[in-house]
């Protein structure tokens, strides 16, 4: 074995006791790194699973059909790993609640790998050509059918006046159906899926047996490639070979009808050649890299400090090696070798403990969520613990890189030191020794000795102070973010008046009977029904009220809220239609005449004339002033931005500062207009592009908390007669409370974990460096004892040092943390420094500080005990000290 390797190994073996602080430091650092990498991996994996569940695991497909004769080409293609096939939808006549079915056939590969299998509610997927699965509403609407029954379908096509209609086209007056063949299928299962009440067909899926299909049937091929990394080149080539039209896409990867499972590919780092820089370096990747680098930085801080102390302990030996002829490179090598030898066991333990920690953390989070029965947003609440050999390998590599980085500076420093200085080393930093003109009196000799010792050992303790301060500041940053989140919830969230909200998603006008039934449920104390449409208005600068003008009025600078035009501004308008009862009551309460607002030919609205005086104020402190001038009595409105779409004028019947919907959240610089719902409906009849959910309505209900569940049950009972489950959503305040509770508990779990890690870093650094320093000064203490210093005086001297080390890190870190808070406040604009401090969790800071102080105290306590026990003569003679 090489002499240096042997020397390093022997040294490590013989100094096992002293290596404990390094082992702890590396273990803690590896736990940190493992946690960051594992959590990122689990989040990534969860995203991947989500995408596969949603889209399937294909890589690409073609937005064009192939026929049976082209299947062998794809199956035999060298670049294609797997082929999934789905036929076009074919119309069928069924004459049940709805007249038609739309049926598509899928082969085994498709059924095994695509999202259809995840929608299975009952039974199984089809395995033979005469088996089908049906959407759940088919059974609901036609209860005479159940799984196992046979159903006859006439397959053919719909048409009207010689024009063929698609299977999903809405019913047309005068349309007819031409039957081509009849088939009987066995229902083997039901699947979930959204279907609107106005759609004329049920959706069925059958089994595709390629050998049995007709030659002219059209199929969509979904491909999994052997090497997906080249898919953006290969897929268009395959499309070309299949004879698809080239198309006019700008980017070559989209030619020949090629379409990609982009999200799935992106998560595997496969991006199209035309991807923008912000896609290649997406925020997720940037966030991941930042977190890993951050964890590595903390790791470096932990290991650097303990390693510096550790290396200083053998400065003399390294000096001897240098004097005998070891080159700087050889010195660096021995220091690095030592780091590697020392790292093996702690890296392994750190990875194991890191894994265990992540397992318990995810388990705890998911059990908290499960017990609350709330469907909460956020991937972190749904992650499942997972690891892989690649991840473990990555952690090992990163850990070793970090350790080598940490020791590179001490290694370089040691390699450059002059040999004789190293051999004679006293550990004192004379360069920075302050010369003081003072007299030593018997009264202050102990405190003077303490101060001089601190002066001389300044450099040695600097890294400890830096690392404790850094940990404190990192904790402060984290707690500041938590505080802002809490401030936001407390100060910037609108206080709910209504405790329940029913949202009806509908493309056509909602059923008024259903709404009437809902609001008539006993236990509902108050209700309001409304729908909103988002349109635009051109505003002239002089429309601004005096109060609004006084604070600057409309601004020519670009902003997120409105657009500057040549002769004015384009503002967003929220046009809200209230149920007539609520509208009438509101207008009357404002001294108006409701009947003025029901003329469809001359629409009139109530203007909620409010704007926030300062948009940087949180809601709790926001002051609202009049938005538009009193003289504004009409607004011109456009359905779409840039003056496009249907345009109309609306008179303003009255201006009010009172909200018709008590807990309505007002978006900045939006104009709010209120009309009766029927007037809004008549206006929307003329809209060009009303949109899919244009007629969606909201029913807000005031219900006592104890009655919420009962009312919810009744609403569900009413709705099932009018709407499929997917077409409405019920929110209640209890959900928010439960969600907030989960978020709080998760936040505390995470806060605790981070502060715990930072605490361990601070404690281990403080303890090891103080311990080492005291050990190295045993001779000095023995000398002091030999000249007559009393036990209590020595103890007092060391206690004074301890007090210094307890306070010094916080003298730096507290003001720096305050600066961090101020920066956050300035960047955020909504919450002031005072707000952030108000919501800061000082308990955590106090606990962390206490733990550091206790560890410093304990280091000195045990150090003093050891110094007490030392025999003066033995210590003075010992060349090893």
């Amino acid at each position, binding site marked *: 074995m*090489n*002499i*240096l390797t*042997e*020397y390093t190994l*022997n*040294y490590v073996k*013989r100094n096992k006791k002293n290596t404990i602080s390094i082992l702890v430091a590396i273990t803690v650092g590896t736990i940190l790194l493992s946690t960051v990498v594992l959590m990122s991996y689990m989040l990534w994996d969860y995203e991947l699973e989500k995408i596969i569940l949603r889209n399937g695991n294909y890589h690409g497909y073609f937005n064009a059909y192939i026929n049976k004769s082209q299947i062998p080409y794809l199956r035999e293609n060298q670049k294609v790993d797997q082929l999934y096939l789905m036929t076009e939808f074919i119309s069928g006549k069924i004459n049940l609640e709805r007249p038609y079915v739309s049926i598509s056939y899928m082969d085994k590969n498709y059924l095994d790998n695509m999202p259809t299998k995840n929608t299975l509610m009952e039974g199984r997927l089809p395995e033979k050509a005469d088996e089908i699965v049906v959407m759940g509403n088919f059974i609901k609407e036609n209860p005479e059918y159940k799984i196992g029954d046979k159903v006859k379908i006439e397959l053919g096509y719909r048409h009207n006046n010689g024009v063929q209609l698609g299977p999903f086209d809405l019913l047309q007056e005068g349309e007819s159906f031409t039957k081509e063949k009849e088939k009987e299928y066995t229902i083997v299962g039901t699947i979930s899926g959204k279907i609107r009440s106005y759609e004329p067909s049920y959706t069925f899926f059958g089994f595709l047996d390629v050998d049995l299909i007709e030659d002219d049937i059209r199929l969509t091929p979904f491909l999994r490639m052997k090497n997906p990394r080249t898919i953006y080149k290969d897929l268009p080539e395959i499309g070309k070979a299949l004879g698809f039209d080239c198309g006019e896409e700008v980017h070559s990867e989209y030619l020949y009808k090629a379409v990609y499972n982009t999200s799935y590919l992106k998560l595997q780092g496969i991006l199209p050649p035309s991807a923008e820089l912000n896609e290649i370096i997406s925020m997720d990747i940037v966030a991941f890299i930042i977190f890993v680098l951050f964890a590595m930085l903390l790791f470096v801080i932990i290991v650097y400090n303990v390693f510096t102390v550790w290396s200083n302990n053998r400065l*003399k*030996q390294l000096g*001897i*090696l*240098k*004097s*005998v*002829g*070891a*080159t*700087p*490179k*050889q010195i660096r090598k021995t220091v690095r070798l030592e780091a590697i030898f020392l790292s093996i066991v702690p890296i392994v333990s750190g990875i194991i403990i890191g894994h265990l920690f992540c397992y318990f953390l995810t388990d705890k989070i998911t059990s908290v969520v499960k017990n609350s029965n709330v469907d909460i947003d956020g991937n972190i609440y749904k992650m499942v613990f997972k690891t892989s050999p690649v991840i473990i390998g990555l952690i090992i590599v990163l850990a070793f890189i970090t350790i080598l980085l940490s020791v590179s500076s001490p290694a370089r420093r040691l*390699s*450059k030191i*002059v*040999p*004789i*200085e190293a*051999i004679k080393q006293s550990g004192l930093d*004379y360069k920075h020794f302050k*010369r003081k003109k003072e007299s030593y009196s018997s009264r202050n000799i102990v405190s003077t000795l303490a101060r001089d010792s601190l002066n001389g050992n300044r450099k040695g303790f600097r890294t400890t102070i830096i690392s404790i301060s850094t940990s404190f500041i990192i904790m402060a940053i984290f707690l500041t973010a938590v505080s802002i989140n809490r401030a936001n919830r407390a100060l910037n969230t609108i206080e709910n008046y209504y405790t329940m909200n029913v949202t009806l998603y509908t493309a056509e006008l909602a059923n008024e009977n259903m709404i009437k039934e809902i609001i008539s449920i006993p236990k509902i104390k108050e209700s309001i029904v409304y729908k909103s449409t988002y349109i635009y208005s051109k505003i002239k600068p002089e429309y601004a009220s005096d109060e609004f003008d006084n604070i600057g009025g409309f601004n020519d600078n670009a902003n997120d809220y409105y657009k500057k035009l040549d002769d004015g501004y384009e503002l967003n308008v929220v046009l809200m239609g209230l149920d007539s009862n609520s509208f009438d009551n509101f207008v009357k309460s404002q001294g108006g005449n409701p009947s003025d607002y029901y003329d469809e030919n001359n629409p009139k609205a109530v203007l909620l004339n409010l704007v926030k005086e300062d948009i940087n104020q949180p809601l709790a402190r926001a002051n609202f002033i009049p938005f538009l001038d009193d003289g504004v009595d009409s607004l011109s409105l456009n359905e779409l931005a840039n003056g496009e779409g249907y345009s109309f004028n609306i008179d303003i019947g009255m201006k009010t500062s009172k909200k018709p919907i008590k807990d309505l959240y007002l978006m900045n610089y939006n104009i709010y207009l209120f009309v009766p719902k029927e007037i809004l409906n008549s206006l929307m009849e003329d809209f060009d592009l009303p949109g899919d959910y244009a007629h969606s309505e909201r029913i807000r209900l005031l219900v006592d908390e104890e009655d919420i569940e009962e009312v919810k049950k009744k609403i569900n009972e009413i709705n099932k007669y009018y709407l499929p489950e997917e077409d409405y959503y019920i929110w209640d305040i209890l959900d928010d409370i439960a969600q907030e509770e989960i978020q709080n508990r998760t936040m505390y779990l995470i806060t605790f974990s981070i502060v715990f890690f930072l605490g361990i870093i601070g404690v281990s650094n403080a303890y090891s460096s103080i311990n080492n320093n005291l050990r190295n000064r045993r001779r000095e203490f023995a000398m002091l004892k030999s000249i007559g210093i009393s036990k209590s005086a020595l103890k007092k001297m060391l206690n004074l040092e301890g007090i210094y080390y307890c306070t010094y890190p916080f003298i730096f870190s507290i003001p720096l943390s305050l600066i961090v808070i101020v920066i956050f406040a300035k960047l955020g604009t909504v919450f002031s420094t005072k707000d952030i401090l108000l919501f800061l969790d000082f308990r955590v800071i106090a606990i962390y500080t206490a733990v550091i102080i206790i560890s410093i105290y304990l280091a000195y306590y045990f150090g003093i005990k050891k110094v007490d026990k030392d025999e003066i003569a033995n210590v003075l003679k010992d*060349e*090893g000290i």
Partner: protein
Amino acid sequence: MEILRTESLTKSYGEGESKVIALRDVTFSVEKGQFVSIVGASGSGKSTLLHILGGVDRPTSGKVFVEDREISTLKENELALFRRRNVGLIYQFYNLIPTINVKKNILLPLLLDGRTPDMEHFNEIVSMLGLENRLMHYPGQLSGGQQQRAAIGRALIYRPAIILADEPTGNLDRKNSNDILELLKVSNRKYKQTILLITHDEKMALETDRIITMEDGRIISDEVIRQ
């Protein structure tokens, strides 16, 4: 033939009020094969001079030539090789590596070079030092005299041009001191090595060929006793 020469060698520590000048403008030379002792009171600059000659410390100003090569301006790597191959340093407190055995301590300069040791030469040195039965021991298991012998072995193994011994007997009893001096003399006569020895012992100094006396960082006398 001149093997070592210094020109206006100066070494100072600190600045301002706390500045200490350990060597002031020292100029002297040594012939090959000479056995030179350097004497003087504590703080006269003897050890500082020796350390600079051995390449384990750098002068503040001035030049040092060893075998016509200026070592005062060598780069760190070159200086390391110089220390390894061209000079042997013996310290008062032995300065062996405690975690490797005596054999490896002696062979250390060769092993750092990655060279295969000439075992005949090694055995000769070990025999001369009387350490045959101690090769597998660790420094902590040896007496002071034995440790110093091992240190001498390390200094001799590469057959360096110069041996620099900084009070090698300062920590030893009379008998061991005499033995060490004898070993140095043998090394001087047999291997024609140039030796510079710092000592407080007048009697020991008189056993050498030339006595250089230092005081206050300067050479105040330079007496050749034997040719």
